[in-house]
């Protein structure tokens, strides 16, 4: 599964994207956040406050309880500040 990171989440993790193999018990976006946060200090730092992390599955905004089934590309980013 392809993961993308933007803005300060990208900076804290230190990479723009990566491909990961997920364990079977990682079923939702919030499961994925917990799993990532346990991968190392840089991930723990990026996901220290999950409330300010937003996610998109295949380029659509989703909520933390969204299912990962069928997802190809999951992005994590802070609240948007465009416009």
């Amino acid at each position, binding site marked *: 599964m392809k993961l*993308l990171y*933007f*803005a*300060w989440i990208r900076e804290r993790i230190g990479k723009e994207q990566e491909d990961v193999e997920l364990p079977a018990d990682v079923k939702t976006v919030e499961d994925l956040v917990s799993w990532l946060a346990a991968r190392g200090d840089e991930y723990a730092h990026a996901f220290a406050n999950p409330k300010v992390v937003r996610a*998109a599955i295949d*380029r659509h*905004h989703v909520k933390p309880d969204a299912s990962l089934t069928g997802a190809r590309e999951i*992005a994590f*980013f*802070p*609240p*948007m*500040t*465009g*416009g």
Partner: protein
Amino acid sequence: MTIRLQREAFDIGREIDAMTRGRTDIGAVVTFTGICRGTEDDGPIAALTLEHYPGMAEEEIARHIAEAERRWPLLGVTVIHRYGRIEPGETIVLVVTASSHRQAAFAAGEFLMDYLKTRAPFWKREERTGDTRWVEAKDDDDEAAARWR
């Protein structure tokens, strides 16, 4: 609809022209231009750097435009959003809406800007003297977007 993400500045007159030329059904055109200010609430800034999520940004803008077209009888919509480094006084975003009457053009322009602020995947980083930091999202932008639900 026209959607463009680009580093370069845009020409507002040319965008209006491209939308209206040769047409006699458009009675009202509203444009919104967002400009990088030299001072934020807590001090001067040297520049903004805008990061975006390529692919999703275009798709998300297209979804907002489609929603605006469902709500109002629009005859044209253009959204241009710049990315990269932008200095104070330079433009950031352009929204052009056209309709036969003014109310639809104004409402759709405001709707699109409220949504771009809170839903389009762009992030601004402020550059200050000797320091940079990511701009935090504003509660009043969320509230402005919530009006349309």
